[in-house]
């Protein structure tokens, strides 16, 4: 019982890593808390559903992030870039407006009933893990989460563009003065963040059902993760995502009644202890 729960916690943590890395990247560069991030995830999941029906799951895994990346670049170019001199609150509320539009769009196109996407045939088996059979697909989800975490970390630390991203997250003005096109950089990073939201949606589709409420469920947990991790910090978000997954898994075994409250209790406790989160120098 505990093993399978811990495993599921790991799966959920991996999904949150994919979600929250996008959220943290966008916050780092644009100082925007993207309320629409959960809706982008949902949009990705539904587009993935259509693509998977038309072609197959693997096509969705490639097409959806590309489509969402394009959407993200446009969002940055015609949204965040024009609003960068406004106070952060207005931009947050703009993303809230965007959330409403996307939710309505999804409900109009795909309807309100639950939909499901079958896992690809290769991963529809189960594998023995410490004597407990677990679905192979979920192991795939963990692999995706680990790949995203590792890939982003290496990219930010060792590539030239990664260096620019880190510089622009610390001080956009000085970075621009050094001759780096921060607008193009932001467009790329917001595109990447949105693509990650779409990827999370496609990956989540076979093990969570698609419904109009899926965005609200995940966005709240993602917020908890990025706040606990320290806004804009990727490493903090990774740690917090895993912590949240584990806390929910353990809570589901020992405190089934209070399990849904655990993430929030965790967040309140950590913020009392350390108001700016794990990584915490940024506000």
């Amino acid at each position, binding site marked *: 019982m505990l093993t399978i729960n811990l495993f599921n916690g790991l799966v959920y943590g991996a999904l949150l890593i994919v979600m929250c890395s996008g959220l943290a990247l966008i916050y780092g560069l644009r100082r925007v808390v993207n309320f629409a991030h959960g809706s982008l995830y949902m949009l990705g999941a539904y587009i993935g559903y259509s693509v998977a029906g038309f072609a197959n799951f693997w096509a969705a895994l490639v097409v959806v992030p590309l489509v969402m990346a394009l959407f993200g670049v446009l969002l940055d170019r015609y949204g965040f870039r024009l609003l960068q001199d406004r106070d952060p609150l207005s931009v947050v509320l703009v993303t809230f407006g965007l959330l409403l539009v996307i939710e309505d769009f999804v409900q109009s196109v795909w309807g309100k009933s639950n939909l499901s996407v079958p896992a690809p045939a290769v991963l529809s088996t189960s594998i023995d893990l410490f004597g407990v059979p677990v679905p192979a697909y979920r192991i795939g989800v963990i692999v995706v989460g680990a790949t995203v975490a590792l890939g982003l970390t290496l990219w930010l630390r060792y590539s030239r563009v990664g260096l620019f991203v880190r510089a622009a997250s610390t001080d956009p003005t000085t970075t621009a003065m050094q001759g780096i096109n921060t607008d193009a950089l932001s467009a790329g990073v917001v595109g990447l963040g949105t693509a990650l939201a779409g990827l999370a949606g496609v990956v989540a589709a076979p093990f969570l059902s698609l419904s109009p409420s899926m965005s609200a469920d995940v966005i709240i947990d993602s917020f908890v993760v990025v706040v606990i991790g320290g806004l804009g910090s990727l490493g903090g978000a990774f740690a917090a995502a895993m912590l949240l997954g584990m806390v929910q898994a353990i809570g589901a075994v020992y405190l089934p009644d209070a399990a849904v409250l655990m993430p*929030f209790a965790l967040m*309140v406790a950590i913020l009392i202890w350390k108001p700016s989160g794990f990584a915490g120098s940024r506000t």
Partner: protein
Amino acid sequence: MNLSRLSLTIFIALAIGGALSLLISSSTVLSLFTQAIIYALFASGVGVLLRQNGMVSFGHALYFGGTGYGIGILLQMQVLSAEWTILVVLLGACLVAFLIGLVVVRVPGIAFGMLTLAIGQMAFLSVSRARGATGGADGMNIEWPSTLFGVSQSVLFKPAAMFLLSWCVLIVVLALLSLLLRTRFGAVTEAVRDNEERARFIGISTLVPRAAIYALSALVTGMAGVLSALNTGFVSPESLHWSLSGMALMMVVVGGSKALWGPAAGAVVYFLFKDVLGELATHWMSIFGIVLIAVIVFFPTGVAGGIQRLMRTRTAPSAGQPRTH
């Protein structure tokens, strides 16, 4: 606005409310107005927090639905008379908000908004899962006694009476807020809002005023919750959901938060707009989303800002556009 002008405005506003309640005979229109006024009060609570402290709460539905549940549960237990229940619940909400405030206002900027969102959602989840006292996801009926403050139910629950009551509460609350915010307390909270560090330098404790403003805004929103409980006699977990907090915030933005009455104007605009839309209402989320974005981008001061600018240019046409900052 000086005191005599304020009292004149209040008098006129109350008179308008009285006239409206007599003139409008359609009970559907009256109940639409009543709902708009209740949400106006809700939004005023969110607005006062933003105006006095620059803090954006994404979880004020906690105090809207929370007071409703508080009243419902206390009335069910029959420990207090209904009048005392209302008072106790409002004070309780205020106290709880102050204690929560002492913790949450220390978190800077947008993280505050996300923290309030989390706390609100925690309440929503607990209530929708609890079976016993709150009726879970089905909500609960509120058993009001046959007379309240000496007025019998049959009189009080008439649409015209409910409208007049809500209107008067809104006007009185806005007037009291306007008076309260002129005192030293108001000045202190503005100082803390504009520059917390300097405020601390000149010896102002910054934590308590911020928590107090948070508690005050919760009290105002809680009153809206009480009125809603009276109006519908029912409370459900939806009244605690974060989308409701988001709606209230939207009303604040559309109305403009610089003026105290701005959020209330935003709420009225919201309800009239929603009613006019009628047929298109299935797509109201898109429409409101687009309106919200348009207002933020093109009219950052909202309805109240627009009206104020209009009045200023009319009273001083020769002096040109006065600078606001």
